[in-house]
């Protein structure tokens, strides 16, 4: 979270709506520990990361959907995907649980 505070502050000063995705749990091998955080603003701009780059694209889509639907936030799970070469998944074989919510607090 520390490394994304500056971007969040900047976006807040521009009154942008922001969603924050945080790793809350990992199973097996995961690239980032719980607490790894990424912020997405309403324009799709990104700060931080929650994996080694494997799932960030999908997280942006989820985050924008959460902002658009006024959702209070939800748990999202990403695991290994070997059957679809280009599907979103972690190549390391682990599963990562993210909580994505609008930054309204």
């Amino acid at each position, binding site marked *: 979270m*520390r490394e994304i505070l500056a971007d*969040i502050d900047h976006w807040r000063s521009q009154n942008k709506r922001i969603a924050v995705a945080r790793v809350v749990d990992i199973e097996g091998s995961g690239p980032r520990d*719980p607490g790894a955080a990424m912020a997405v603003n309403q324009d799709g701009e990104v700060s931080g990361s929650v994996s080694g780059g494997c799932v960030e694209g999908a997280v942006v889509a989820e985050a924008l959907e959460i902002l658009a639907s006024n959702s209070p*936030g939800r*748990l999202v799970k990403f695991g290994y995907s070997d059957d679809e070469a280009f599907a979103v998944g972690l190549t390391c074989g682990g599963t990562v649980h993210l909580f994505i919510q609008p930054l309204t607090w």
Partner: protein
Amino acid sequence: MIYSTLAERIRSNKPVVLLTVIDGPNVGATLLASPNLNSLGTLGDSELDRVAARDALGELEAGRTSVRNYGPSGQVTPEDLRDTPTVRVFVESFSPPPQMIIFGAVDFTAALARVAKVLGYYVVVCDAREVFATKRRFPMADEVLVTWPEPVLTARGADLGPRDAVCILTHDPKFDVPAIQGSLATNVGYIGVMGSRKTHAKRLERLTEVGITKSKDLDRLMSPIGLDIGSRTPEETAISICAEIIGKRVGRDVPSLAKSNGPIHR
């Protein structure tokens, strides 16, 4: 208000823990707790707030981030939780960064301070010689102190714990013997001392003279400092020191120079 307080505490290196309901009633509700301060926000139930904040402050103390399960009013026993929805709470601890105190303002110090900053350390550089210990030479350090080791370790020693490191880079016995003595009196997780094997042998004699002879003390000294990776430049040496710190912290059997016998440089 929760976010701005969280950001302020993270930036000022003060401990704080953020609780978020990630499943169950009131998903997305947040509570912010800090030691000795009133908590901010609510998870949706005052009793749940009280119980979860108490647990979270314990997690913060241990530096842990985890998911905890409660009943809607903070119930924790299996009997109480029967037939109630489970509230899953993400407890995220923000501990102050680990500290690295570097004794000796030499070329290796600048490189080590840079690498330590990359790893997230709060870096303190200390040397008694005011021409060397300057903020201009070590702009990356969080603090540059012109003083001897004793006052620094007396004032800050109680704050040093398993996550912290002391690196003694002077080759000067006037400075490194008191730095070693002072560091051994703390619970700091890593004490590395620079010097050739010859310097190390001589230093052991001087430590014996001042009464440091117990193997449990001497075993804490990583000397010569760093891993046996044939590093030559200050930057390579800094990497080898930080790699040794990481390996020791997680309990891996890493190839420390302190445990090998060959030449440090080939």
